[in-house]
């Protein structure tokens, strides 16, 4: 397990470097061009939001950059390593070690407790169970859920569940956190609470965050926002611009 400072990566250096990423879905009847040559750079410690209308390719871009999905052409370098050429096993290990994920639908295992869910990425990457449990409790502490550690997901509220997924994403102190609509299923108060937490952790841990969102308020909390349309990046907006948009809303 590596910490938040990946080998060879100096502060402010590029952590995610995507060049001309193309992804096409073939449904058998029609071809959907989800990504049409997307290029993107994200620096260490940066929080980047990806916005755009439904079907514009936001989640596809996140999945392609994080190695969850393959793409047709282009190059993606994470911490200087080309994930395009990594075999599946290696890519999986890389994810377990260097990445954390937060999803809209939480995706917690209902049969495990909060602590067991959080320690899962550690155990699969070979951490001793006792150490894993300590780290999991520490991670739950950071999201202020330590006292709920032995509850199962069904016994937690939506916001609490999302905090567990954030704890799980942070537990191995990954270099990058990928979040796909992290507040999509939450009410506005809870969404604000969750974003406060993400921002707070970003500031404290200097992790890189890539967040796919529909919500300008979420985007306004990020350093910059990438606007996508029809499988392409159409522009970049600053935090201030997004704050103004959020206020308009």
């Amino acid at each position: 397990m590596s910490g938040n400072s990946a080998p060879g990566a100096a502060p402010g250096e590029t952590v995610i470097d995507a060049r001309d990423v193309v992804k096409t879905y073939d449904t058998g009847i029609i071809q959907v061009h989800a990504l049409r040559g997307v290029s993107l750079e994200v620096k260490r410690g940066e929080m980047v939001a990806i916005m755009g209308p439904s079907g514009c390719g936001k989640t596809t871009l996140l999945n392609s950059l994080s190695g969850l999905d393959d793409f047709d052409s282009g190059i993606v370098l994470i911490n200087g390593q080309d994930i395009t050429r990594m075999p599946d096993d290696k890519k999986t290990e890389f994810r377990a070690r260097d990445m954390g994920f937060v999803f809209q639908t939480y995706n917690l295992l209902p049969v495990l407790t909060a602590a067991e869910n959080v320690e899962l990425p550690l155990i699969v990457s070979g951490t001793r169970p006792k150490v894993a449990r300590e780290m999991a409790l520490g991670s739950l502490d950071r999201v202020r859920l330590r006292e709920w550690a032995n509850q199962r997901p069904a016994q937690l509220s939506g916001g609490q569940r999302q905090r567990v997924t954030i704890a799980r994403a942070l537990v191995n102190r990954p270099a990058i956190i990928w979040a796909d609509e992290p507040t999509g299923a939450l009410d506005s108060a809870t969404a604000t609470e969750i974003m406060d937490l993400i921002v707070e952790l970003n500031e404290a841990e200097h992790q890189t965050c890539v967040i796919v969102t529909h919500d300008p308020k979420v985007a306004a909390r990020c350093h910059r926002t990438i606007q996508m349309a029809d499988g392409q990046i159409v522009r970049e907006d600053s935090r201030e611009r997004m704050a103004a948009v959020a206020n308009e809303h």
Partner: protein
Amino acid sequence: MNDLFGVSMDIIAAVSIAVTAGILLLVAYIAWRNPVMFKLGLRNIPRRKAQSSLIVVGLMLSTLIISAAFGTGDTLTTSVTSEVYSILGEADEWISWDPEKEPRPIEEQLIPLATVEEWQRQFEGDPDIEAIVPFQRETLPIQNQRSRLNEPSARIVAFRAADAAALGGLRDLNGAPVSLSGREMAVNEDLAKEIDARVGDSVIVFYGGQPVEFTVSAVVPSDVLAGAIDPNAKNGAAVDFATFADITGRGDNANAVIVSNRGGVKDGLKYSDAAMDKLEPLLEDTPYQVVALKKELVRFAELVGASFTTVFVVFGLFSIAAGVLLIFLIFVMLAAERKPEMGMARAVGAKRRQLVESFLAEGMGYDLGAAVVGLLAGIGVTLVMVEVIKAFAGDSLGIPLNVTFTARSLAVAFCLGVIATFIVIFVSSWRASRLNITAAIRDLPESRPIDPEAETWRGYYRAVLNGIVALSLPIGFSFFLFGVGGMVLGVPLVVVGLISPWFYALRSSNFASPAEHRTTEGLPRWPWILGLVLPVVGWFLILPWYFIAVGLVRITRDRKPQSLSLWVRVLALSVWPFAFIVALLQGWRVRIAWTAGVSVAFGAAGVALTYGGLDRDSAFFFLLGVSLLFLWVAVTLHYFGVAERVSFTTTSAALLALWYIPSSWTKPLFGELEGDIEMFFLSGMVMVTCGVFIIVYNADIVLPAIARLGSRFGRIVPALKTGVAYPLTARFRTGMTMAMIGLIMFSLVMMATINRNFSALFLNEDTRGGFDIVIGVNENNRVDDIRAALASAGADTQPIAATGELRMAFPFEAEVENRDGFENAEGGEVKPYSRSKIFGADAAFLAANGVTIKFRAAGYATDRAVWDAIAADPSLAVIPASTTAEQQGFGGGPNEILRLNPLDEGFEPFTLELRDPGTGATKVVTVIGQMKESADAFFALGSPDFASGIVVQKSTLLEAFPASRGQRFYLSLTPGTDEDAYARTVEAALVQASADSLQSLLDEQQRLQTGFLLVFQGFMGLGLIVGIAALGVIASRAVVERRQQIGMLRAIGYQRRMVALSFLFESGFIALSGILLGLTLGLSLAWVLFTSGDFGEEARNIDFTVPWVDLAVISGIAMGAALLMTFLPARSASRVPVAEALRYE
């Protein structure tokens, strides 16, 4: 095969075909009325081809089991019947001397030809009787001079040519007529094969020790005209009547007469009753008797077939039960999978009934497919089983087995499969249709509506009231059946029970709604249709009662009282029809706690069954009743808020403990309760159910232990943990699957263990009785001194270390006082005398035998002391172990054979009176010992009736039964002598002797037993397919259900193999739990039954052995197959595309 469980197969066929036709008509009606929903259901079948195939495999099991059981029965019936027709030919009835009417030595039991000729004249031109044929017969040794081969017991018959012509005449293998004169002999095919006889060979027959030479003039078919009468002993030959009469000195007399009816070989049977009606009065005042031989043998063949079918069906019940669980599980899971679709369908206006119809359409698609596949598979399984039986049993069956299926059996198997599956599909469809639309669309768990009466006595009262009203019919029948409450309680219960299902069906319909909620929709149509399409059942048991229910609902729907006073409610539970009225008057919106209510109904039936069981001394009804009472307790505790884990665990553990209590402990309390093979099924069902409840409610305690394994297994801990945790959150499907596997394992383990221990009890070193060779001697050519006879025949007698002679009186020629007054005849009549085999042992046998004694009378310190005492005192005797066998448990029932009360070590000697049924002469002997079971097997080995008997001195036997003719010798050989080779030497030297090595006979017995066990285990093991298919279905379903979670696991770093592993662990956990459950329960119950004496006193003292190798093989196969079945879904889970899975909803 004409009967199954005592019900005519014609009736079973008619009813099952009619019900199947009704079901198909109903489905056709649904397709016509509602083609869209019908198609919606049908089109689901090809959606997931692998899953559909698995479903068909699972559903086909019932049909497979039933058709294989029927196929085996048909095969045996047809094979034995064909053999009977082939042997008896035109012979239908058999007239012979009746020693009970007039006792006389066997050589004097003759019928003068003149008498027979008088009968022939009397019945000339009779419409039923075609011919009456006298003949002489004798069992004699024969030797072929050319091949030097012998047959010690050839059945030699002699017909007059004119008489034989009436039976079709003697013909050779090519059909050419054969006539015999002088010393000519026609040998039958079987004898020709045995002694390698050809036309022209010279053969010697021995009569009274004197050789008589014949020349083989023809080889003829093995039928009654050539001595083949008994299917187990067909070696025979025909000779000229006059020549044989000269040899035997019987002159113009016959010792048996055959009657041939009108018609041919098969259709002569239908005149049998008419012929018997004429022959019986004819012989009434004569010393002769007539037996409807062909009819009896055909009936016996049908009995054999029906017995096999019954045994296979009973053993197959485990698999059928497991199959029913699987069908239910499959449809519950299909319903879960389709929940959002069904919710959407309901949202856009589909009615509950239409959802049921859609499910029925899909289910019937699987059902019909599965019935066809099951039928074909059943035929295949029968072929395999018959081949295995043939391979193991070989010639010892005595008949050639030809696989046969009757159209009726196939039709019944198909229909029963369709009906069983339809019923389960109907129930599960109905259950699936009761969904909350919003929860279903969003695929959320069903929320329970708030019930203000929940956990209150008021709610419980309502549950009891409705539960008993709804299930009045089964309760009423069980009350009737066991005489509880008599007509006063039974009749109202049955009447209410016929109406109440329709009342509850109407209760949820628009027709029954209060006026303010009612729409224009009319009455539900399906009960009308069901009533019309089901012949008889529908017309008499549905329609009239439905009309009454409609009338009652119509009257009361707008007349609901706000509340009912307490006395009315109390009265309702006391006076039956009143309960129904109160149920009718309750509000439409009130919730009924059906689980609690149904459990009360089960409890009521349990009371009736318990009472009935005690009243009839039936262990089955008693324990079934008590088990139902436990179920009622568990559900009631849960209703009143006791946690499920606590209520079901405690009641299951208590019930399990109850089942382990040996009957010898409960005997003082409840008396002796009789149980038979059905207890095997009931114990398995109840004990496995209890075990499953205990596991599914408590297995989570192993989770911390698994977590602690972390330090050893590191990365696979999460897979292990989820492998246990997931099944425990889906208790229903896990419990069902565990029960399926557990049930089959229980039955296999019980069977293997019981077989191993009984085998050890009967077939062990003691079974050789201290000898090496047994020699059967032809009764007409007895030997005085075996050693001298062998020496004079030129055989080397040096290897003989010791000899022993037994003379025998068979049960048909020996009676023993029925001392303890057991019922020993049909109808339970207590007769003063029972039948028994009696052995008379010579001094050499008594001195040399190593036969072991189980219980010695007071004053006899060793086994040797017992045998020496008998050698010294002709009034002493020992009895076989089987005499005091309790004949309960598996098999048994009254019969003619002597049965006595159990003995103990050091018992007081007691007397038994022996009686010759021929002369009525009696002799009293004193019993001083009882032999072991292995000794019974020793005396049975090499005996055609495989029976043991009472042992007395030879002189005592000859004095008591002077007409008895059986003789047997035993030899013990010097060490190093080849037993089989010496047995062949004996046979070559003595033409009247058949010799066998006791070890070879023992080996053959064990081989036979192993073969039959294998057939049964294979047959019962078919049920494992069900459990394994269930695991496959569950795993496939889990992959679909948990797609997103799999995506997440892969996202956070689970390798593909880890995902696959977690699925394999899940199936492994369920399979292992089921296997261990069956193993533990089966072994422990077998141990209790053996060591407590429930399997008889003889079994109590054995060294209980566990067939570990057999059990390891069975468990290994089950576990391996389970993992193999999960491999495909596990692999597909590991290949789930991560990004796609995370988007999947």
